[in-house]
């Protein structure tokens, strides 16, 4: 059936809507520009020499945090748990009063702490010339000792939140399979079923062969964990906003899980391929170290791929939004918003693709380890 005319009509309508949308955005600043630009100029004048640092801003926003920024000056304080020389010290991160420059000292468990750039240090006895209770070296890094930081940070919070969401979704789906046995799927169940089947038929079966069922729980867990967290990371306000899959520690744990599964499930053919490949014996000097190295580079590449993709996406969106502050003009806002929306839409796709890539590569590596000799 030829549906091209329908498609063409829709495209035309989309173009019209989008043009109107852009026109509205570009026209609006003209109407209200006068008071706004004056206000901007005034506020900039106050700290004129201070240039907007886009890199620092972006890195601050993709990093972990001890408190959760809600809106404006509203923060949710999260518990800070420190393992110090004399046992644990626990206090609310709100005690720092959003200070990130080591100017506010918090006393807990008989010790004094300051927070500098989201790291917690033992406070110095006296403040330096900038009012900071740390000793800075010549590169402006703090030289103070650090307690072991086991805090319940924003990322940890999001981790638990995503676990709750995933559990809620899957327990509900599992229950409806029990209750509606033999009937067609309904509601959330019919939304999840194609995705689960996609993981089974397009990821597990082609790579793992007939032994795929053993690894389905792991593959499904990894897929949905990464996907849900990528999506949560794209939500700019409260329940989302943490950059969990763009945190290298989180991706490392996932990669280590794949590494362990690969190594512990490797059969004799897999190990023979590594230690006694079918090459002349004098090639072993080169082949064995390379193959041994390969065991580790594969999960490391998995770890860095996910981390770098998600981090790059977040930095891109933040940088586009920051263009307004870089050019210091309201007229750049429609451009920056349009590009940020466009990249945001691409990030939705990337969120899925990265979950898919991580899962399919995990399946590929495990499949290589359990493959029978042929």
């Amino acid at each position, binding site marked *: 059936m030829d549906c091209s005319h329908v498609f063409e009509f829709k495209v035309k309508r989309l173009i019209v809507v989008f043009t109107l949308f852009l026109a509205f955005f570009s026209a609006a600043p003209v109407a209200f520009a006068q008071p706004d630009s004056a206000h901007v100029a005034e506020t900039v004048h106050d700290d004129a020499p201070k240039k907007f640092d886009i890199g620092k801003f972006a890195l601050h926003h993709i990093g972990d945090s001890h408190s959760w920024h809600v809106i404006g000056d509203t923060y949710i304080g999260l518990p800070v748990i420190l393992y110090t020389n004399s046992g644990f010290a626990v206090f609310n991160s709100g005690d720092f009063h959003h200070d990130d420059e080591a100017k506010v000292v918090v006393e807990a468990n008989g010790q004094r702490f300051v927070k500098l750039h989201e790291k917690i240090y033992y406070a110095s006895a006296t403040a330096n010339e900038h009012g900071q209770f740390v000793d800075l070296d010549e590169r402006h890094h703090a030289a103070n000792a650090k307690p072991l930081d086991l805090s319940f940070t924003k990322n940890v919070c999001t981790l638990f939140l995503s676990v709750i969401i995933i559990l809620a979704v899957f327990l509900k789906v599992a229950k409806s399979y029990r209750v509606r046995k033999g009937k067609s799927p309904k509601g959330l169940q019919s939304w999840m079923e194609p995705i689960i089947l996609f993981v089974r038929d397009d990821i597990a079966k082609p790579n793992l062969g007939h032994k795929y069922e053993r690894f389905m729980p792991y593959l499904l867990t990894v897929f949905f964990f990464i996907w849900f967290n990528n999506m949560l990371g794209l939500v700019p306000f409260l329940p989302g906003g943490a950059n969990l899959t763009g945190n290298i520690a989180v991706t490392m744990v996932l990669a280590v899980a794949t590494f362990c599964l690969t190594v512990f499930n490797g059969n004799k053919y897999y190990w023979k391929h590594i230690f006694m490949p079918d090459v002349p014996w004098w090639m072993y000097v080169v082949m064995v170290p390379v193959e041994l190295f390969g065991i580790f580079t594969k999960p490391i590449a998995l770890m860095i*791929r996910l981390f*770098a*993709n998600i981090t790059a996406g977040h930095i891109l969106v933040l940088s586009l939004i920051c263009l307004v502050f870089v050019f210091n003009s309201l007229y750049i806002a429609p451009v920056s918003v349009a590009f940020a929306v466009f990249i945001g839409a691409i990030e939705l796709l990337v969120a899925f693709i990265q979950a898919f*890539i991580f899962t399919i590569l995990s399946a590929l590596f495990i499949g290589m380890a359990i493959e029978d000799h042929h």
Partner: protein
Amino acid sequence: MITGSIAAIGAGLAAIGAGLGIGKIGGSAMDGIARQPEAASKIQTAMLIAAAFVEAVALFAVVVALMGNG
């Protein structure tokens, strides 16, 4: 006088490399799908995996450039 970090040049070079690589992958996938439209879904999967490998190398470069910058 141009000021800035040489890391930016590194990131740009990485983008050129990845652009060439992904362009080649995408072009070849298009060729393949045009020849055999019924194999489109399999070609797309293989294309995505190959593209992910290329992209990963570019992103390694970006990460190194960022670290060099900071």
